[in-house]
């Protein structure tokens, strides 16, 4: 019986010829990631267990990104715990204020996540690196601690859902609209415990930024991981960037998929997920203009904080003003993206439009800091979750959308079709 791409990577890292769905395996880890929220709990577990050394400091990455720049004294203590541990154990891949980025923007950019890798991260959006053709999945702090101590993790080999992509994106439709559409179709537990395997003859039309956005939200369908084949887009992205050699795995032609869905990229429209689940999707054409007024528009995050995201937002906001009574917050994903956006003049466009531009942080996305919602307020956001209380008060609302929709909405003051602000694209 053939194996999926995910199963091939897991078999290789478990030192096995083949694996089958449901099999429990012990796999070697290439990379282990955690942040200022999850690392302190892992460090506490390591200390409790009396572990005094790191299995391989070169495979460990710490990013202080959630509550930084430190939002309060307790957050500062947590960031310090991570900093002290990284320094004590000579973890070179430690990123702090000034060099950091939002972890899932930063690791691909810095070439730390490599095609063919087996990666765990104590952050649910670790599945982002599937865009590169790696197996990457989110875990809790204890699994991470075990990985730091031993370099290994146990996995149950997942079954798979294949997403066959045809055609090309048109107009303002983006990778974000594809993943929101897919979650709307299969539901927030539609891929629970499974791998989402993206495939198609014409994948080269999907940029790496789009793929990173798509893989990022695989967890929002409950998936263990999302994964893209390695192609010319992957190779171009990785060239001169990756820190270790890549390994290319391909699904067998007779690999078994529980289900296969085909999505025509050309049919996708800008899509919005209404509160309070990412599966509550509607296309922009189903939302009457002016029907959903907003008080905040958030553009950024590990889902949509990359340069192409900022470019499309700036294109729509250029020469326009953020609507009265709307706060628009733009937060680039990494220091490098921030610098690139500055040099391209994007930051100037945002500031002249009346938007606030923030240092990279996960803050607003999870209701941490830098953009919290009051009771009854609504935000359109390019982030990944719209659960009750996600961005602030339990009676606030988050509408998930692409950077184009968030930028158009910031200008309009309500959830708006980008065509209304920027004309047809």
């Amino acid at each position, binding site marked *: 019986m053939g194996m999926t791409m995910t199963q091939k990577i897991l078999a290789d890292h478990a030192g096995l010829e083949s694996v089958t769905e449901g099999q429990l395996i012990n796999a070697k880890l290439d990379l282990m990631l955690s942040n200022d*929220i*999850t690392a*302190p*709990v892992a460090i*506490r*577990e*390591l200390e*409790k*267990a009396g572990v005094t050394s790191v299995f391989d400091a070169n495979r460990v990455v710490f990013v202080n990104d*959630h*509550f930084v720049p430190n*939002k*309060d004294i*307790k*957050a500062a*203590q*947590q960031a310090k715990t991570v900093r002290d541990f990284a320094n004590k154990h000579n973890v070179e891949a430690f990123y702090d204020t000034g060099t950091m980025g939002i972890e899932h923007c930063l690791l691909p950019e810095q070439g730390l996540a490599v095609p063919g890798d087996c990666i765990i*991260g*104590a*952050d*649910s959006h*670790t599945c982002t690196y599937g865009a590169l053709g790696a197996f990457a999945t*989110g*875990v*809790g*702090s*204890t*699994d991470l*601690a*075990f990985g730091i101590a031993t370099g290994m993790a146990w996995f149950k080999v997942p079954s798979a859902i294949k997403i066959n992509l045809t055609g090309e994106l048109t107009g303002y439709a983006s990778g974000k609209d594809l993943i929101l559409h897919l979650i709307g179709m299969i539901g*927030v*537990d539609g891929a*629970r*415990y499974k791998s989402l395997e993206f495939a198609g003859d014409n994948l080269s039309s999907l940029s790496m930024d789009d793929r990173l956005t798509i893989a990022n939200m695989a*967890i929002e369908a*409950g998936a*263990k991981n999302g994964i893209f084949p390695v192609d010319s887009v992957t190779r171009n992205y990785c060239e001169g960037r990756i820190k270790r050699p890549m390994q290319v795995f391909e699904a067998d032609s007779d690999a078994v998929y529980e289900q296969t869905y085909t999505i025509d990229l050309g049919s996708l429209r800008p899509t919005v997920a209404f509160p309070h*689940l990412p599966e509550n999707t509607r296309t922009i054409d189903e939302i009457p203009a002016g029907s959903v007024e907003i008080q905040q528009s958030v553009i950024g995050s590990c889902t949509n904080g990359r340069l192409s995201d900022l470019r499309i937002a700036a294109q729509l906001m250029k020469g326009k003003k953020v609507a009265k009574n709307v706060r628009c917050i733009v937060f680039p994903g990494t220091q490098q993206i921030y610098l690139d956006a500055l040099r391209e003049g994007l930051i100037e466009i945002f500031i002249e439009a009346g938007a606030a531009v923030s240092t990279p942080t996960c803050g607003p996305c*999870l*209701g*941490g800091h830098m953009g*919290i919602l009051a009771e009854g307020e609504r935000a359109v956001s390019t982030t990944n*979750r719209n*659960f*009750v*209380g*996600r961005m602030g008060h*339990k009676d606030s609302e988050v509408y998930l959308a692409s950077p184009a929709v968030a930028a158009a909405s910031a200008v309009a003051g309500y959830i708006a079709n980008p065509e209304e602000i920027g004309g047809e694209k």
Partner: protein
Amino acid sequence: MTVSGMVHKYGDNVDTDVIIPARYLNESSPAHLAAHCMEDIDAAFASNVKQGDIIAAGANFGCGSSREHAPLAIKAAGVSCVIADSFARIFYRNAINIALPILECPEAARGISAGDEVSVDFDSGIITNITKNEQYTAQPFPAFIQDIINRGGLMA
């Protein structure tokens, strides 16, 4: 091992953001997490919950963030077991890793109501609803997972 307690009942897709909102993740002490557990969907939970109580819920319990603070908060609040129609995968692993017993049992998730007295036998997987005089059977944990829970967690 057997536990018993009063049930707190919730619906589908209880996410880790409502189990413990991120605004409280600037520290991770069990007492702090327990004090804010379930705050955004059940403000009275932290003050009502008693040692040994049980949570029963619908599908996809614990979806969303990987924060281990979520099962830690539930455990620190005194909950002895979570029974659900199904669990999100990261939460499932995390609960086992920190020794919070959880059981997948759609039949129990449907049959149990808020306030019911329920007992759970982890060796057999039998869930007894004392209030309604009903029994439901869940798949018991395999030995290696029982062992992790009995030890007090993966790193214990």
